[in-house]
Each structure stands twice: as C-alpha cells, then as structure tokens.
C-alpha cells in the first residue's frame, strides 16, 4: 500500500503536521546531521507531532548519540523545545526523574519524552529503559533505530540486522558480516514489560508516526515507540534515497509496523504485496557482499526468512496476529 503525500489535499486525515507551515520545527535548521539523515527527519517529525498534540507542553531527554551530537554542540542548539542531555546509558532514568518532578509539582500536563539511538536503547541504556518500563513511569521513550553506532563510526549494535557489514563486522572470506542471529528485538522486550503502549514506526510513513505519537503522548505510564531511520552514511546508499529505503524495509516485511497495548499485539499495517528482501538489501552497500561474485544464495534467504516470519507474526498479510 502506498501512503499519501505529506500535504495530501484529498483526505484531511492524511494531512501531516509535517506539511503544515505551523509545525514547530522542534529540531530546526543549522543542525549538523549528515546529508539525507533519517534520524534528523524522524526526530523533527516525532517531536513536532508531540508538540502539536500537547500544545507545546513537552520536555525532551536525549541520550548521547548522533542526534545529541549533531543537534546541540556549543554554541548552537537546534532544539526548539526544552531539551536535556545527560549520558549515553541513562536517558530513561533521567526522564523518570523529570516525570517524577513534574508529577510532584502537579505539572503532569507536561509530557516527557526520552529519546536515543538503537545503541542507547538496546545496549547501554537497556537497564535503565527496563527499569523505567517496570516502574511504568510516565514517559514516552522513542528509539531512532539506524541499526548501528553511527556516531562513533558504524559499529555493530544489538539492533544491527543479520549479515550487515559494520566497522566491527567486516565480511571476510569465511565471515558474512554480522552473525545471522535475530539480534535484540527491543520492541518485543518492551511488549514483554506489559507497558500501556508499544509501537513501531518508520520515516517511510510519516502519517503513521504522527498518529502513533498523538496516541502515545497522552497515555499515562510508559510508552515505547521504535522508529526506523535509515542512515545513508552507515548503510551505504545515496543521500537522496533515505525515504525510499525506509519504505522498502516496510514493504519487504523486514521492518513491520505494529502496535501493542499492555503486552498484547493488537494491530499492524498490512503490506499488500510483499517485495523480495533483495529489493531492500541490494541498494545498500552494507549488504553488497551478499550479492557479489562470491555471494552465497543462502545468505539472503536468512533475511528473507526473517521477513516471512514477520509477515505471519505481525499479520502483515492481513491475517490474525
């Protein structure tokens, strides 16, 4: 299924906040993200949506990572919202502290968002994230998933997909890149905490991000939103293709868009006609070794199986979840 243009004139439901000249530009011009950065777009989109839904009553806590470094380097901050950065591994706990402070001072109308990359979320900060979930602190945690440590030079993270090339998983003769394990499915881990709301989204579907943010931001308790944000530099594709790559990930089933409440999956965005994973993998240099002269056809099938299993598991074929 195609999604409509951002400023779709035909259906009011599909007009995005991103298309509005009144959007907050929560992450504004002059930031130092690379050309074509998916994370910069994802962050602006998500925070603008939250800003819109709350009338500007939001406080952001940011983990260390690309987003933090490119957006707020003295003497320039690109943030148009109250924004706080402490450490790499503690953003959820810091956000819990902000939420506690707001609760005790009767300002619970101000909503707290913690955000970080996949490294901060799946790896170094996972303890704090789990603690935040377990206490059901009133925080929306957003993970911008670009599937590796981009800020430090594209090293593997717990969210790096099987067989991907990173600086720490360089393919060699008898090594095909990141080990073909499933990796850490942080969204499922979030669901297992039975928090009020967990969802995945992608910058390939801005309408969906905005709807999910609007829904999540007013829920009391812990919420988790996992946004897929392709990285031209780390994944090796032209800077102009960021959105297209994000869409291909959705369309092949490797990045399923779903929602869960209180530990139960309850909805997903179906993909009408799944494309083969090759269509998504081939344009990316991090998977180039799977298609080169010495490629083994089995390798791609590992990823195709992940996609196939997602399609069934998340009802992307319109089936039951």
């Amino acid at each position, binding site marked *: 299924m195609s999604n409509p243009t951002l400023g779709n004139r035909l259906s009011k439901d599909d007009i995005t906040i991103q298309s509005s000249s009144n959007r907050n530009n929560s992450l504004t011009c002059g930031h130092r993200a690379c050309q074509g950065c998916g994370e910069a777009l994802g962050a602006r989109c998500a925070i603008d949506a939250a800003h819109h839904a709350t009338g500007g009553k939001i406080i952001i806590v940011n983990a260390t990572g690309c987003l933090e470094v490119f957006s707020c380097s003295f003497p320039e901050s690109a943030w148009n919202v109250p924004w*706080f950065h402490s450490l790499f591994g503690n953003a959820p706990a810091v956000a819990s502290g902000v939420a506690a402070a707001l609760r005790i001072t009767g300002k619970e109308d101000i909503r707290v968002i913690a955000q970080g990359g996949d490294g901060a979320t799946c790896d170094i900060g996972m303890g*704090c994230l789990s603690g935040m979930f377990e206490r059901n602190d009133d925080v929306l945690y957003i993970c911008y998933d670009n599937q590796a440590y981009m800020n430090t030079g594209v090293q593997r993270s717990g969210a790096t997909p099987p067989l991907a090339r990173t600086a720490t998983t360089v393919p060699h003769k008898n090594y095909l890149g990141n080990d073909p394990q499933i990796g850490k499915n942080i969204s499922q881990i979030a669901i297992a905490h039975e928090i009020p709301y967990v969802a995945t989204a992608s910058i390939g579907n801005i309408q969906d991000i905005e709807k999910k943010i609007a829904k999540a931001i007013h829920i009391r308790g812990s919420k988790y939103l996992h946004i897929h944000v392709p990285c031209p530099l780390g994944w090796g594709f032209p800077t102009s293709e960021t959105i297209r790559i994000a869409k291909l990930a959705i369309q092949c089933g490797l990045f399923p868009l779903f929602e869960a409440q209180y530990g139960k999956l309850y909805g997903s965005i179906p993909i009408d006609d799944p494309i083969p994973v090759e269509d998504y993998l081939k344009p990316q240099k991090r998977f180039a070794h799977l298609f080169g002269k010495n490629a083994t056809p089995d390798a791609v099938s590992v990823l195709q199986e992940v996609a196939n299993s997602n399609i069934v598991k998340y009802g992307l074929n319109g089936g039951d979840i």
Partner: protein
Amino acid sequence: MQYQLEGSQAIAKAVALCRPKVICAYPITPQTHIVEGVGEIIRSGELLNCEFVIVESEMAALSVAIGAQAAGVRSYTATSSQGLLYMIEAVYNASGLELPIIMTLGNRAIGSPINIWNDHSDAMSVRDSGWIILFAETNQEALDLHIQAFKIAESVGLPVMVCVDGFILTHAYEPVDIPSQEEVDEFLPLYNPATSLDIHKPLAIGTMVSPEYFMEVRYLAHKKQMDSLKIIQCVRDEFRRKFGRDSGGLLREYMTEDAETIIVTLGSVAGTIKDVVDDLNLQEKKIGVISIVSYRPFPIDALKDSLKKAKRVIVLEKSLAVGIGGILFQEIELVMKDTDAEVFSIIAGLGGRNITKFMLQEYLSRKSCKKITFLGLKEEIITKEYEFANFCGREGEV
C-alpha cells in the same frame, strides 16, 4: 528536640526536613538505612509532596535525581562503595551540569575483594569529580551537614556529597538534636533554580563542548569550587546563629592552639583521636587535632593557617592510593611545603579495621616514625605471603 537515633535514621529525618521533591534509591550492597528511612517518612505521610522512586541501579538512582533536579526540584539520593563506582559517570555529569543534588555517601571500602565495612576509598575515587564533598564527624554533624548541604548546593549551584562513615556513624545509635520543621524552613528557602527545563523558556541543557571551549568550562568549574569555600563558611555561621550549634564549615580544630604535633584526619575517627589527644595533653604533650569538613573544595588557606605553628603533622586517613600511598597525606604535604614541619602518613582502618586508642597511643609514643605507617598491619601475614630473603618489613613499613 533530642532523640536517641541510629545515624541513618537521623540523616533521613534531616533530609525529610529539607523537603526534597524527588528521592531515589537503589539498595546496592552495602546500602544504609537512609533512603528506606526517608521512604518510611514519605509513606507514613510525615513528608508530603515527595516522590520516592525505587530504581533498578545506582546509575539510575543518580540519573533520576539528575532528571528531577534539571526539571527544577530538590532531589536527593544516597549511596555507598560499589554503588558510587557504578554511578560514577553520572556523578561527573551532575557536577558538570551544575545540578545541586544532595547525596549521602555512607563511606565503605571498595573491592575486590568485596568488603562492606567502613573506609574512605569510595569518596576518594570521586574526589576530582567536581562535587562539594563534606565529611561528618558525628551523627549530629551528619544531620546538620545535610541541612547545610542543601543550602550550600543551591547557593553555589553544585552538587554536594555528605560523607558519613559507614556503620560507625550510619548504624550507631547516638543522641541527636533534631530541629523543628519551622526552623529548617526558615533556614532553607524554597528551591528556585536559575535554569531548569521550562516549556515557557525552552533551553537546551547538556551540550557537547569542543576543544575551543572545554578548558574554560573546566577552569570555571574549579573557580566555582574554590569560591564556594566562602559560602560553606557563611552557611556554617548562619547555621550557628539559627540553631546555636557549631557544625560544618571548613575544618574542626581541637587543641591546636599551642600544639606542636597536629593530627589531620577525615570523618568520625577524629573522635577517637581526640580521646587520645586529651590523655596525652594531660601529660603536656602539646598535641592537637584537625578534622577536615570540606574535603572538596580543599581548604588550603585555612589549613595553612591552622598548621602554621605545628612542628609535626600526622595525616591519618582511611584510604590508600595504591602505588603511591596516602591521598590526604599528599594534599597536606602540599599545604606544608613551605614550612619546616615534618609530615607523616598513617594509613589506617581500611575495610573496617578498628582504629583503637591503644594503637594511636602506641604510634604517638614512638621515638621515631617512618614517613608512611600502615597502622595495625598484621606483619605475620605479610611475612608469610612474602617469604623471600630480604624482606625486612616492620609493622608494615615498606
């Protein structure tokens, strides 16, 4: 009002009187009874308007406090030993962001080997972190220092760590005078931070700073610490006026007026030393004691002044910088560098080893001392461990 209380409970009462809004706790071994004491005060309704957040790690404990403080409310946590080391990244972060958090450190040894008893190794591991570090000598002072700490922290804009000897103070029952809520309220105004996370004035807090500016950031942090020496004294004076008690400040001096020998130390062991000094002064030995309250910022000028007549300075500390020796010792040597006085180092009480009056009397009765003495070291064990020909240690002197 006077109470007979365990040190942890006295501190809990003091913290509660300061009306913090967010308290977070993680019971890493070894934990004290402080936060559970505050928890009980909150749960019982004695302290209203305070969030008690039970976290999953010490890292989270201080991080929650960081978040709360950044959001503009008074926040507090407590830790010890390994827990402090686990949160050390956040310790540096809190001071770098100039967030006036108060944290009690129930001083304990750090491992390996694991050991839950008192010494000052934990505090020494964060001595350069940019926090104001105060040491309490008694439970009464521990209680008073907490009330002062909030005032100091919020006046200066830096976090304050109040060091209280684990077990020796935290678990000891002593009579303490607890001020009334009204008195504390008058002493400690409501927290009104200059900068916080405010939707009406959106600031970005916690930037990345490049080499062009980082030196200046560090210089200003140092200057701020040194400037706070004055504030610590002002708060001590104000506290005395309000509560009629001498607590806090930079140093506690005892019998130093005409003393030829002055023992410098940190924390509760000063009490034992004072007893010994009393006995020896009766024999006209002219011995005094200085215990440092404000370990960071380090009161160089005050120490210089107090030690200027001393012929001999003995630094007794419950910590060891492996590979060099005493830590406080080096700092006192720096203070004494332009004088003729001799400076000696005693490393004692590591991992909760008792420091007895007898040990101190014995040391002070020696005709001559080595530069560094490991007081109470069991020589036979060391000898056994190093069974080689030219080992000639005596009482731990290396």
